[in-house]
């Protein structure tokens, strides 16, 4: 029996094709009444069209404007053509002179770069309100340094605004104003929230002159979809150390003036696992009313219990479990023997042509609208090494198109990072070589990158030996814990437990921190749970063991939110740390939620922070999900890992994965032309990915002052110094010669045509 939704969808198609509602209802007697109501409501929408005469009047009125535009455009184009060549010639000359001047001045010229908030040029066409982010004094664009200085409150909101800030060159419609930011002192005295304490707020105000100042024009609005509010405080005034502060934006209230919305935030504080907690712990129940006022009241709890309660606008929320380990907590469960799971792996960056083929096939078949595609064609690989030719971890690599920052990433443990010239509007089609600035330990090198001569570039810091006291490794597991993962979550947990024990047992002086983020979907018991990094593997295992699969519902899940939390809400250590995320999922992210994060932005942020993401595809992942997980892996130089089964399907360890575009195991010529893979035990594969990553960083010592910087294309001798001014002058001169020749020729033709006109006119007069 078809579901009501299926019946409805089919009937809609049939009615649109001209069939009557009655005819379609006959095929679905079990849904007749409800179906009729829905279809008749749909028909009302069609009937709600404005009358023909209204449309015709509007059409008559606008027609003249359109024709006028067409004609004036023709005139403007004529004028543009007549000015173009002389202007271009002058521009080339000025440029040539400028470049010669710069070349003469040499390194004395400083680098001043424009303030770039940063953006991804996703090809998806979700038009959201374009925003301009302002700084705290509301008067100037936000400087990235200011952004960094802000608390997570501001940053998380900026991240929300980022997809809109990119905006494909559209005129800004609104601005986001960051309200007062609450200062947190940590560790230190954290006092319970006081009535009337100014909370962070965000105002989105329209810049559209049609809206500003016009009450009830078309107010911007936002939905109340973030509701968790939790404030935990130690009654003995002994602070948790450190406090993870996660501000939320639970509500966005339409401004009655019709000029925008005000979103107000409350703070959530979560003690880190392993924190010593007093035995008498009160909770503070924070209630947020729609007007943004906040009340709080401490409630004593039984000894040894830590619990938070959240309420928004009178709606009770379920308790939010807070990840921590109590002083008297039970010891973690001993790691059981690993239940083997098999997995395959694909490194799309190593099989680049195959990946591009897969990408274009997917986009052709499904269209770019189903994912947030980023144009990764023209990929450039930049590798940074020290004087010994060994990779440098955490070097900042910034790429500029002219004065515009178009890429900002950090090198991974392999010393590599990627640059995608076509990923952003600002860099796509940029003709001149890009300028690349590489910085590590306050040492800077610059070189020019001509994408035509890539894709491999090697930057070697002569005279510097990159060193580490010990290898620092941050490993975070990001888990989809919705019910669709139920068939495998226990085995995956078991494997991750085993993996964490194996990591802890790795030989060498490795300082490992473990983190865990779990996510479900909106409307579920929780959206995300964040267990910040801990050096105690047992604490991590305790957190992992407490998780189970539930919720979900529809196929996509809140992967965007989970990814955001994994990148922003845990304490990643500094640039000299190997940072890995293993993302376990069986579904794509929701791309239809308002006020959601964007995985494409998050993966760019990961690359910016030197975080590598290895997705692990569980059973049931659809084609869109596969594409997105491979996007994330490719962009962050991770590997796409997938569980494999035997012919019996998911949950049974084997070697095949027929639902993915991954070819056949060990089949050199796959019929899907997507390459082959080998099958390993999942725990061994993950451990290998980790050890591969850290192997090149072992046993280094700190020394070194830089002497020289050598930049070369990988595998090729360093290019001879070449002054671009010479090329520009030559091009300019040829251009001018050509143009003067064309001018002379066209003048001749013009004079000739005029002569014919005179002759014709004269002939007419004599007819």
């Amino acid at each position, binding site marked *: 029996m078809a579901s009501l*939704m299926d019946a*409805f*969808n089919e009937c*809609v*198609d049939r009615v*649109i094709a001209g069939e009557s509602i009655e005819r379609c209802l006959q095929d679905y007697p079990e849904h007749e009444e409800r179906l009729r*109501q*829905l279809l008749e*409501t*749909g*028909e*009302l*929408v*069609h*009937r*709600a*069209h*404005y*009358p*023909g*005469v*209204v*449309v015709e*009047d509007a*059409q008559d*009125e*606008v*027609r003249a404007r*359109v*024709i006028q*535009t*067409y*004609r004036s*455009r023709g005139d403007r184009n004529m004028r543009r053509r007549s000015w173009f060549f002389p202007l271009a010639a002058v521009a080339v000359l000025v440029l040539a002179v400028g470049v010669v001047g710069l070349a003469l001045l040499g390194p004395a010229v400083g680098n001043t770069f424009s303030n770039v908030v940063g953006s991804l040029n996703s090809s*998806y*066409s*979700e*038009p959201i*309100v*374009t925003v301009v982010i302002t700084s705290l004094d509301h008067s100037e664009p936000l400087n990235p340094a200011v952004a960094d200085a802000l608390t997570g409150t501001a940053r998380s909101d900026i991240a929300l605004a980022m997809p809109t800030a990119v905006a494909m060159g559209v*005129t800004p*419609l*609104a601005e986001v104003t960051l309200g007062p930011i609450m200062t947190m002192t940590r560790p230190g005295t954290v006092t319970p929230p006081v009535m009337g304490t100014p909370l962070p707020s965000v105002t989105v105000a*329209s810049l*559209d002159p*049609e809206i500003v100042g016009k009450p009830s024009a*078309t*107010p*911007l*609005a*936002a*939905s109340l979809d973030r509701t968790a509010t939790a404030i935990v405080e130690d009654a003995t005034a002994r602070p948790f150390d450190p406090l993870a502060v996660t501000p939320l934006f639970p509500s966005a209230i339409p401004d009655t003036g019709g000029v925008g919305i005000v979103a107000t935030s409350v703070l959530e504080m979560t003690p880190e696992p392993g924190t010593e907690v007093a035995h008498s712990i009160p909770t503070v129940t924070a209630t947020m009313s729609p007007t943004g006022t906040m009340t709080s009241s401490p409630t004593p709890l039984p000894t040894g219990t830590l619990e938070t309660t959240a309420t928004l606008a009178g709606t009770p929320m379920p308790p939010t479990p807070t990840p921590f380990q109590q002083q008297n907590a039970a010891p973690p469960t001993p790691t059981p023997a690993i239940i083997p799971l098999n997995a395959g792996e694909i490194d799309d960056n190593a099989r680049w042509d195959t990946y591009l083929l897969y990408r274009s096939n997917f986009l052709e078949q*499904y*269209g770019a*609208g*189903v994912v947030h595609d980023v144009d990764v064609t023209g990929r450039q690989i930049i590798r940074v090494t020290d004087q010994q030719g060994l990779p440098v971890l955490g070097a900042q690599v910034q790429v500029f198109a002219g004065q515009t920052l178009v890429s900002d990433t950090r090198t991974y443990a392999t010393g590599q990072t990627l640059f995608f010239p076509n990923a952003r509007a600002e860099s796509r089609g940029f003709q001149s070589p890009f300028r690349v600035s590489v910085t590590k330990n306050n040492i800077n090198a610059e070189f020019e990158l001509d994408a035509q001569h890539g894709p491999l570039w090697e930057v070697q810091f002569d005279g510097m030996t990159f060193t580490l006291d010990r290898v620092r490794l941050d490993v975070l597991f990001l888990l989809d814990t919705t019910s669709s993962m139920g068939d495998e979550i226990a085995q995956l947990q078991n494997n991750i437990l085993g993996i964490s024990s194996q990591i802890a047992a790795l030989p060498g002086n490795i300082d490992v921190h473990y983190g865990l983020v779990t996510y479900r979907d909106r409307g579920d018991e929780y959206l995300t749970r964040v267990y910040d990094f801990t050096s105690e593997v047992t604490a991590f295992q305790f957190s992992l063991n407490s998780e189970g699969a539930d919720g979900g519902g*529809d196929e996509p899940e809140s992967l965007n939110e989970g990814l955001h939390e994994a990148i922003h809400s845990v304490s990643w250590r500094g640039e000299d740390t190997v940072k890995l995320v293993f993302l376990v999922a069986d579904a794509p992210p929701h*791309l*239809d939620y*308002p006020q959601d994060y964007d995985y494409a932005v998050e993966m760019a942020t990961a690359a910016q922070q030197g975080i590598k993401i290895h997705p692990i595809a569980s059973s049931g992942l659809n084609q869109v999900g596969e594409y997105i997980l491979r996007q994330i892996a490719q962009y962050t130089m991770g590997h796409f890992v997938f569980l494999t089964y035997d012919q019996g399907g998911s949950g049974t360890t084997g070697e095949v994965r027929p639902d993915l575009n991954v070819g056949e195991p060990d089949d050199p010529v796959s019929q899907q032309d997507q390459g082959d893979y080998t099958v390993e035990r999942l725990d061994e594969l993950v451990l290998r990915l980790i050890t591969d990553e850290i192997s090149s960083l072992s046993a280094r010592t700190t020394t070194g002052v830089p002497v020289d910087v050598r930049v070369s294309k990988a595998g090729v001798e360093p290019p001879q110094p070449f002054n671009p001014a010479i090329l520009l002058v030559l091009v300019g001169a040829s251009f001018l010669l050509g143009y003067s020749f064309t001018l002379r020729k066209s003048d001749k033709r013009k004079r000739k045509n005029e002569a014919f006109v005179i002759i014709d006119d004269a002939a007419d007069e004599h007819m």
Partner: protein
Amino acid sequence: MFLIVLPDPVTEDILLLRLQRGSEEAVIAVYEEYFPALYQYARLKVGDSAQAKDIVSEVFVRLIESLGTRSAPRVSLRGWLFKVTRHEIYRSAGRMVHLPLDDVEEWMAAPEHESEMSEGFDLERVRHALRMLTADHQEVLILRFGQHLSLKETADIMGKGVSAVKSLQFRAVDTLRSILVEMEASNG
């Protein structure tokens, strides 16, 4: 009843070809063919007649300016026009244009045309109920039920998958019906 009849695909292909040559007649032909559909779309979304006219006018200005450039329509003229209209609507009116349920009559603009007055209160109520929906719900209803666009076309314009549009249209109709029922109850 004023019905919108979009050009069939063959006519559209011919129009597109003519347009690519950039002649004034082609631009006018496209204007005459598509203005009604685009105007209805914009007007249902924003409500205000002048604003809807400005939006559609801007769409055609952008069409003219795109001729001969890489951003000109190449495959689907109708898809291009609806996408740009959608973009202009958001640019002009913001991401979410929806009204509160209370005091709906206060939000209802006075009819601007005699024929609008004669069509009665009910259809105007439907239009305003439409504007109380979320942007996605409004859009899927207008494109699917108002314009009779296919699932694929609607999905392309909205930047979503076909299955997402299916579930969206179901929820949107359901929500619209609830609002209409509530409005009817509150108005006796």
